[in-house]
């Protein structure tokens, strides 16, 4: 445990395909926090987030045959699973609540408010990096990363030109990388 083994994506994929438990441990240790962060931002409770995380890893492991390297990054594939499962989870809960107290329109309205709320208070608690992220950048990155919105969808939703969305997504991630646009271009 002293020396921390690292695998690149290709090595990791081979190990997972061998159904190696070490590969699972590595996968979990390296990606569970990131995926949990995504899930936690979508669902409403810690408990629900943990359930979704558990189901996500089980699905990743058991459905690994459906992952194709040519279709994209391993992390992106896992992210899609986590995001979809989290959304499904809230949707099934939402359905129950909705039938009780809310009309469909109210739900949509409330969901819109939710995004605004997310930007308003910073309870997700990204201390150092998050503080350096501008509010509008955070909103855009969260929609893309946590909710899986395409740039076109963000453009429509926030009523911002598509080109601006692209730039802002890029700037947000550059900020997260600790880089400025100018630093990179040099």
């Amino acid at each position, binding site marked *: 445990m002293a020396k921390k083994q690292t695998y690149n994506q290709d090595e990791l994929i081979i190990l997972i395909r061998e159904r190696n438990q070490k590969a699972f441990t590595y996968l979990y240790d390296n990606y569970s926090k990131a995926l949990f962060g995504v899930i936690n931002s979508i669902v409403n409770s810690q408990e629900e987030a943990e359930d979704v995380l558990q189901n996500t890893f089980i699905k990743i492991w058991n459905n690994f045959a459906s992952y194709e390297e040519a279709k994209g990054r391993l*992390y992106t594939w896992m*992210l899609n699973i986590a995001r979809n499962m989290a959304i499904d989870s809230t949707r099934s809960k939402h359905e129950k609540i909705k039938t009780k107290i809310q009309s469909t329109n109210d739900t949509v309205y409330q969901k819109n408010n939710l995004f605004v709320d997310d930007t308003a208070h910073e309870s997700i608690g990204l201390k150092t990096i998050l503080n350096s992220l501008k509010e509008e950048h955070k909103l855009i*990155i969260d929609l893309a990363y946590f909710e899986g919105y395409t740039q076109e969808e963000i453009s429509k939703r926030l009523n911002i030109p598509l080109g601006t969305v692209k730039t802002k*997504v890029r700037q947000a991630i550059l900020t997260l990388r600790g880089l400025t646009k100018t630093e990179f271009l040099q």
Partner: protein
Amino acid sequence: MNVNEVISSGLLESYVLGTASAWETDLVNDLCKKNPLLIKEIESIEEALIKYSSQSTATINSEVKNKIEVKLFSAHDQQAPKEATILALKDQNKTVRLYKLGIAASVIFIITSVVYIFSLQERLNKTGDKLADVTSSKISAEEELKAQQTSLIVLNSKLQILSDPKIKTIGLKGMNSLASKSALVHWNSATNEVYFNASALPSSPTNKQYQLWAIVDGKPVDIGVIDLESDSTFQKMKAVKNAQGFAVTIEKTGGSNAPTMDTMCLLGNV
């Protein structure tokens, strides 16, 4: 599109975020094959996103990892052998029980079969006996029928003979030793045939036989001895012409050439 244009287009970010369209994804994959620099860029975008979403204050309960591992690797897990052994024992018990049940069932089956075979054997024997009985009674019935048919034919022929208008039936009256007895002679005057009915006669004394004589022109003519053993009611005798009467004497077995007059026991005239 040069590398910098691709990098600044925001395409790589969409690619990692999983929000790129299919054709955009294909495009990035193709570009990556030609430019390793793009892979580096993608990896650092990915790293930044992972870092970003990992910065949550919420920590994951350590139980979650264990739960997943139990679900995914329970067959190789330390907890698993216990369960596996119990299962194996259960299975073994089940198998042994199944074997026992199978053996018991086989024994019962064999015993039942043997008993059944014996009962079948017995029934077969009985049936065989019955069949033999039926066959023999059938044979005797057939024989009886044949006999009846024969006697019917005989009777018919007798009837035919007797119903001939030329037939004369002569009653012979008993005398001497057979004073109370009688006999019948059927004589056809056209064909000269003679039939003797001795049904009313007692059996002849030992080593003696009844002999029938026809009286022709006052003289006795031998027309045969009476065989009481065969057909006493309708015995065909020798033919005789112009008979005026018939008489029976008791002679030595086989008959005599001339009648012994003092043994004459029956006499009748035509």
